């Protein structure tokens, strides 16, 4: 079986992959990144969303071999030195998690959004999440949480007035 070097959350992993293995499968089953959820496996639900070189992709449709040489970020890679990412904090604060299965994918889509657009409108947020399905229907709280995270980041950067 060919070996591939994958860079996940800043760390290098050497892993054996089949040509048809998806990144979702390799992350979950071979590298233990169970924070990457697998659900529809057809690219529709977004629960397996990870960042590849900063862009949101569905890892269920991505051949693992195609991730060679790229920077992969999963939800587990968001926390820094034991401190949750502001998006994670705000999701908790806003009760934006019910069963939690969609949460890692939502987080990654939200991270990609805020990295490219630090001051998104509600419409921007909803569009950025249009590839992530929540079956507990908690969208409203999720959108509010992301807006709150954007605001908090703005305050931290000094681009947003302190409340």
């Amino acid at each position, binding site marked *: 079986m060919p070996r591939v070097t994958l860079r996940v959350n800043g760390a290098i992993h050497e892993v054996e992959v089949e040509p048809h293995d998806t990144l979702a499968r390799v992350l979950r089953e071979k590298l233990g990144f169970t924070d990457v959820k697998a659900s529809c496996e057809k690219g529709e639900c977004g629960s397996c969303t990870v960042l590849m070189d900063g862009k949101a992709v*569905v890892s269920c449709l991505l*051949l693992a071999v195609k991730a060679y040489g790229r920077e992969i970020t999963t939800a587990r890679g968001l926390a820094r030195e034991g401190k949750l990412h502001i998006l994670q904090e705000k999701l908790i604060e806003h009760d934006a998690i019910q069963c939690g299965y969609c949460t890692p994918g939502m987080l990654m889509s939200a991270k990609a959004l805020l990295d490219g657009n630090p001051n998104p409108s509600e419409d921007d947020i909803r569009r950025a999440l249009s*590839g992530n399905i929540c079956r507990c229907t908690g969208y409203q709280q999720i959108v509010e949480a992301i807006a709150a995270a954007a605001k908090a980041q703005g305050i931290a950067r000094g681009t947003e007035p302190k409340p």
Partner: protein
Amino acid sequence: MSIAPAQFQPSEYFKPTTVEEAVGLLNRYGASAWPIAGGTDVMVEKNPSIRVLVDVTGLGLDYIVSHEGWITIGAATTIAEVAASPLLRGGPCHILSKAAQELGTPQIRNMATLGGNLCRPSPAADCAPPLLVLDAGLNVVGVTGQRQIGIEHFFKGVNQDALQQAEILTEVLLPPLPPRTGTAFVKKGRVAVADLAIVSVAVCVALKDKSAVEEVRIALASVAPFPTRVRKAEDLMRGKTVTRDLLSAVARQASEEIRPISDIRASAEYRRTLCRVLVEQALEEALDQAG
């Protein structure tokens, strides 16, 4: 001869760095070898007959450039890049960006490519109607070299294109258009975003003077086995002076000319009605820009 396994389990993956190498691999492995770009179709279909995957994203075909009025787009350019391209903004080609912005989800747009949207075409291929009315040319390369196919001759049936074995699509070419040209793209799905089209329409109208139509192209997706132009509707309009009655007649003709089916997203009858409404709406929008 081996029998294909029932599972999608290709045993080889290649990522060539030149078009010649890619074509050579496809030629060597024959029908069991498939090109893969973003993978958003290949990895959903998971066709068990695929034994060899030839990744075409390492061929240097991701670019959007303009030269002497022509815009050339590499086939491996992602839909997200097409959606965001400043070169496509402003002019008549903005409808290609618009279609790209409305294709699938953000994740799919980051992965899927323009070439992948056109090859093995879905009847609902979002980028097809804009390219049909922009009169795009397609460069394809095979073992015997390069040839160019007008986009109208590229779509052959459901999931069928004009590529021959071991040929790959390399570039999409958008020709310059006359000064008084307006274009529009309208897509309707069941929901606002992240859905396949029930009907999508693109139109391109060039005016001769204030209201006489020099040239018009109207194309639709999701209303026939493959994205298609409605030639009789166009003929009704070419050379005529624009009136409200003319636009209604053209839209009605378009709705009679299409071959819609009923499926999970809509009935054939609804598609005809929607076609009439959307063609008229798109023509008005394009005429506003042209005039």
